[in-house]
């Protein structure tokens, strides 16, 4: 009969109206600025650079290899390699990015830079409240704005961070062991050759490794 479907529909909306006062399933609004949905661990927005330790300019993991720059689909990363080198967490001297700019007005949050980075240096941040009236300076993230401590990474991607930290501790332990072994071997050679030079050789890797170590554990 004419009107039955209409009445069924009215009953449905009526049920939802009443239900919105009784059943949380029928009132799904999350009042955003005050209430927030839990952020998913995998959620990604824009990249940031991880640094170990306290200071961004010392602990930056990025070695300016420019792989991410090349692989970035929309070409929104701009890197200038440093002239000099700094030791990384294993103590190996590496370049660092003198300029590392990401134009987040172009970035498509595809995470390919993260996937291709062999140094775990670039990761995805979860900050999304970035609206700004400043078109040119507000949206070009420079190295200083991109650098965030490892503790931040651990906070937003705990599973990933734990895995990476573990690996880096292992790597470091291996490197140290190797350095030690090398040093010992050298020391042996040295003692064999000239006993006076031992001390200087053995102490070389230490100062370089110190800041990286802090970061990995913090």
């Amino acid at each position, binding site marked *: 009969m*004419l*009107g*039955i*479907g*209409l009445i*069924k*529909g009215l*009953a*449905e*909306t009526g049920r939802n109206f009443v239900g919105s006062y009784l059943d949380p399933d029928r009132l*799904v609004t999350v009042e955003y600025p005050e209430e927030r949905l839990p952020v*998913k*661990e*995998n*959620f*990604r927005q824009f990249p940031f650079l991880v640094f170990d330790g306290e200071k961004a300019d010392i602990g930056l993991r990025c070695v300016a290899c420019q*792989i991410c720059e090349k*692989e*970035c*689909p929309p070409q929104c990363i701009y890197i200038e390699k440093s002239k000099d080198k700094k030791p990384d967490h294993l103590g190996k001297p590496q370049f660092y990015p003198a300029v590392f700019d990401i134009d987040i007005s172009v970035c*498509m*949050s*595809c*995470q*390919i830079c993260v*996937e*291709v980075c062999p140094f775990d240096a670039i990761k*995805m941040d979860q900050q999304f409240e970035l609206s700004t009236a400043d078109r040119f300076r507000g949206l070009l993230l420079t190295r200083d704005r991109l650098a965030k401590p490892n503790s931040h990474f651990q906070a937003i991607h705990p*599973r990933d961070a734990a895995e990476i930290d573990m690996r880096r501790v292992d790597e470091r332990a291996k490197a140290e062991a190797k350095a030690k072994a090398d040093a010992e071997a050298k020391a042996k050679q040295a003692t064999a050759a000239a006993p006076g030079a031992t001390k200087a050789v053995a102490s070389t890797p230490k100062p370089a490794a110190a800041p990286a170590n802090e970061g990995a554990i913090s």
Partner: protein
Amino acid sequence: MPSHGGATAKVPTEAGAPRGPDAYRLTAGDNEYDDGSLLEISMGPQHPSTHGVFRMDVVLDGETVVKLKPVFGYLHRNHEKIAESASYLAAMPYTDRLDYFCSLTNNWAYALAVEKLAGLQVPERAEFLRVITAELTRLQNHVCLAGFLMQDMGASGTPLMYGFREREKILDLFEALTGARMMCNYMRFGGCRCDTPPGWLEEVRKVVDRFPRFLDEFENLLSSNEILMARTQGIGVLTRDLAINAGITGPVLRSCGVDYDLRKVDGYGLYPKFQFRVPLGDHGDTYDRYMMRILEMRESLGILRQALDAIPEGPILDPKSKLRGFRPKPGEAYGRIEAPKGELGFYLISDGSPNPYRYRIRPPSLINLTVLEDLCLGHNVADTVTILGSIDIVLGEVDR
């Protein structure tokens, strides 16, 4: 085969019959419509119901459509050109933005084409994940389509809201798995990017278990509504022969009774292992097209249940696949899947370099629009909107 109703008598009856150039000119001789009996209006590119920046130049006699010319290209963002100058991997995030409702099926189609091109194999767990994500995508696409169709019919947002309420639940799953709500960028050549986070499959099961309740509600709200039936039944009748000849695919094709579902025909992925039925319509009108989606959703739920029961542990990426420096040997491949909107195909020509020589997308939305004029002629302006809505287009894919 249902014959044309009186209202659609202006549709050329011989399927695929070529029509003279005059049939395509909107203002023939510049003064054909000057006597004031006909009204020419341009619907779009900014129009509430053209689903984005689509435009239809419509000639009306009163409110009856006499001529309708779709105008494309307002969202032509050069996807193919960009992909041809970027690496194979770099094109993957761009496929997300093709049909931006269904990024995961787009990913799959592209991955399938590249896998055919390079001869990569997909581990079983990854295949299961692909099926699960693709069927979830189909669910959320159809839910939104039904909502938008009602919106086009003038329902003040309620069905759309219900649809989006369910969509959000599925998007939560996508976000937990891939990190993004819409632009998932999840599949890789020879597998998937990452494994499921702990507890994800249980979450999927929860959503799947609750979904039928929503479908029942939705059908209560609308499927038997007299206004909906009056607005859609007998409107925009697509004949079987015309549909085949015009390359219509997906639910629109099946609504006129052609049994052609690539999940069955090609049996790509793991679909031959799942039991599901392909619903078919007999009338090919807007109501059938709408109902096809509703029925397909129920079948998708069945596939999801089977997949969730059977998903094995294992690797998710072919060890042969490479992220960087991927250079398939020269050759070409055409991979196609049954996307929620129809047959989505990727045609790739490799010349051995790191970027595809030719990268072509076969967009179901665009080709389904071939018959838009045939469907709309003789109907009302209000019907053009619902017919367009029932074809289910996404402009990102139409214009690429």
